[in-house]
Each structure stands twice: as structure tokens, then as C-alpha cells.
């Protein structure tokens, strides 16, 4: 990850912590765990919002992408592709409840990666997606 980029992520986390101390702290912890886990893969170069965006919007072997339910804009509400139930925005700057509960994050990555990729996501993929989501504010 470029130094400028890691700096901007830090700044956003710092900005969140001004408003939502608990949320930002948990978000940071979740990201730290993904980074810790991804570092064990050779060639790990940090997380990338661009890769996260591409991952979020692409299909991965079946009909669904993350965007199928969450829409192409993570600042918008989405709806469940099968049941049409409302899904609140994924971007933490729009919906500060996001990524404040590590167990919930784990539960949903497990389910949704199985649905979209038919496998578990790597720490790199999860870290990229969260890095991308953190850049979205409208």
C-alpha cells in the first residue's frame, strides 16, 4: 500500500473516531486482524481500495456480485436479491453501525463469500473491500 494511501485511511479512521469512538476502534481492530492474517501470504503489499471496488462490483463465477444486493454504490441502501428486504448502506461514513461488531463481520463475510464466490474470502480480499468501503462517503 502506498504511504499516501495508508495515510488517507488513517485520516478517515481518525475522522470517524472523532464522531464514533467505539465504531472506529472496532473498525481499526478488524482491519488489523485482516492485515495480520494477510501478511502471512508472500508478496502482501497492503490493502487497495481500487482492488476492493473491483472485487465488490464483479461477479466471481456465478450470477451474484456484492453489488447484486448492496448496489453499485455502498452509500445507498440495497435490497436482498431473493427476499427484497432492505439492506442499510455498507459505507461506514454513511452508516456508522457498520463494522462495529467483529462477530457480525465474520458471520456475513462467511455467508456472502459462499454465495458470491462459492468459497471463503481471503484476508486480502476482505481487507481490500473494507478499505474501499471506507473511502465512500456519498
Amino acid at each position: 500500500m502506498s504511504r499516501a494511501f495508508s495515510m488517507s485511511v488513517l485520516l478517515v479512521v481518525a475522522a470517524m473516531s472523532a464522531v464514533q469512538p467505539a465504531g472506529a476502534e472496532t473498525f481499526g481492530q478488524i482491519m488489523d486482524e485482516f492485515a495480520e492474517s494477510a501478511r502471512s501470504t508472500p508478496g502482501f503489499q497492503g490493502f487497495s481500495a481500487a482492488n476492493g471496488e473491483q472485487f465488490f462490483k464483479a461477479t466471481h463465477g456465478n450470477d451474484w456480485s456484492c453489488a447484486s444486493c448492496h448496489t453499485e454504490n455502498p452509500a445507498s441502501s440495497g435490497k436482498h436479491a431473493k427476499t427484497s428486504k432492505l439492506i442499510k448502506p455498507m459505507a461506514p461514513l454513511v452508516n456508522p453501525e457498520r463494522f462495529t461488531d467483529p462477530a457480525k463481520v465474520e458471520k456475513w463475510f462467511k455467508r456472502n463469500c459462499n454465495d458470491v464466490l462459492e468459497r471463503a474470502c481471503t484476508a486480502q480480499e476482505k481487507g481490500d473491500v473494507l478499505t474501499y468501503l471506507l473511502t465512500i462517503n456519498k
Partner: protein
Amino acid sequence: MSIDFGSALRMFAAVVLLGGVMSVAQADDDEHEGGRRSVATNAAWQAECGECHVAFPPRLLPAASWREMMAGLDKHFGTDASLEAPVAQEIGAFLEQHASRRKIDPAAKPLLRISETRWFVREHDEVPQRVWKNPLVKSPSNCAACHTEAESGDYRERNIRMPK
């Protein structure tokens, strides 16, 4: 202190007992499926099942159906809805405790879709095809499309509004 420990304990016991009696009364509700008295609740059931769809009332399916449903959450009608074991066990126990008590053929494969039960089909036989096909309805599992108070467990006729 004006209330001693003994009387506080008795009050607590009375409240617990009353709660138990009320939950038994709520569960004994086979005659009124889909009606007003659909109030058996559990916080984990509401939170987890209600995350993707209305948390369907437990008495709409027999215990054998709920058991099979909870055993196959990783392949739940085409999506992975898996839960950690402790919360799955709590929800499973709640669903079975308040399940329908209608007699079912023990040899038959348990129904998993509420919309395939005879009760559901009969209750909805007057709903026109165009309503089912309306994009705002989309699926018979979308109770809240017409049952405006479904989120709170209220399926009474007076609160039905079919989308035009």
C-alpha cells in the same frame, strides 16, 4: 431499605411464574395461525431470522420442519444463512417449542416452505395472480408486501394492503 430480600425474591418469583404462564398461553395457538395472537418471541430469532426476511412465526411449521431447516442453514433456499452453533441451538429450541402441533405424517419429508403448507395455500387462495407477480411482492415469502404489520407478528385481515 423498605423491601427486604425475602419479599423481593417472592416478587421476582411471581413475575417469572406469570411470564411462564403467559408464554404457554401464547404458544397454544394452533387454531389461529396467521391471526392476531402470534406473539411468541425470542430476541435471537427476531434478530437473526429477521435480518433477511420477516422472522416467520414458529407455529407456521411443525417441529420436524424447523429441525430440518436449522440443520441446513448453510444452504437455506439458495443462500448461506449459517449461524454459530450456540445461537442456532437457541433459535432451534424456540422454534420447536412454539411450533405447529397439527398432526403430520411422520413418514413424509418435512415441508420447509411455509407457502407449501395446506394452511398457507387455503388462506391465500383468493389472492389474484397479478398480486403474486407484482414486483413489489415478488415472492410468497415477502409477507410484509401485503401484511403491513408482519414485522410485529400481526397478520390480521384489517392490516392487509395488497400493492396495486
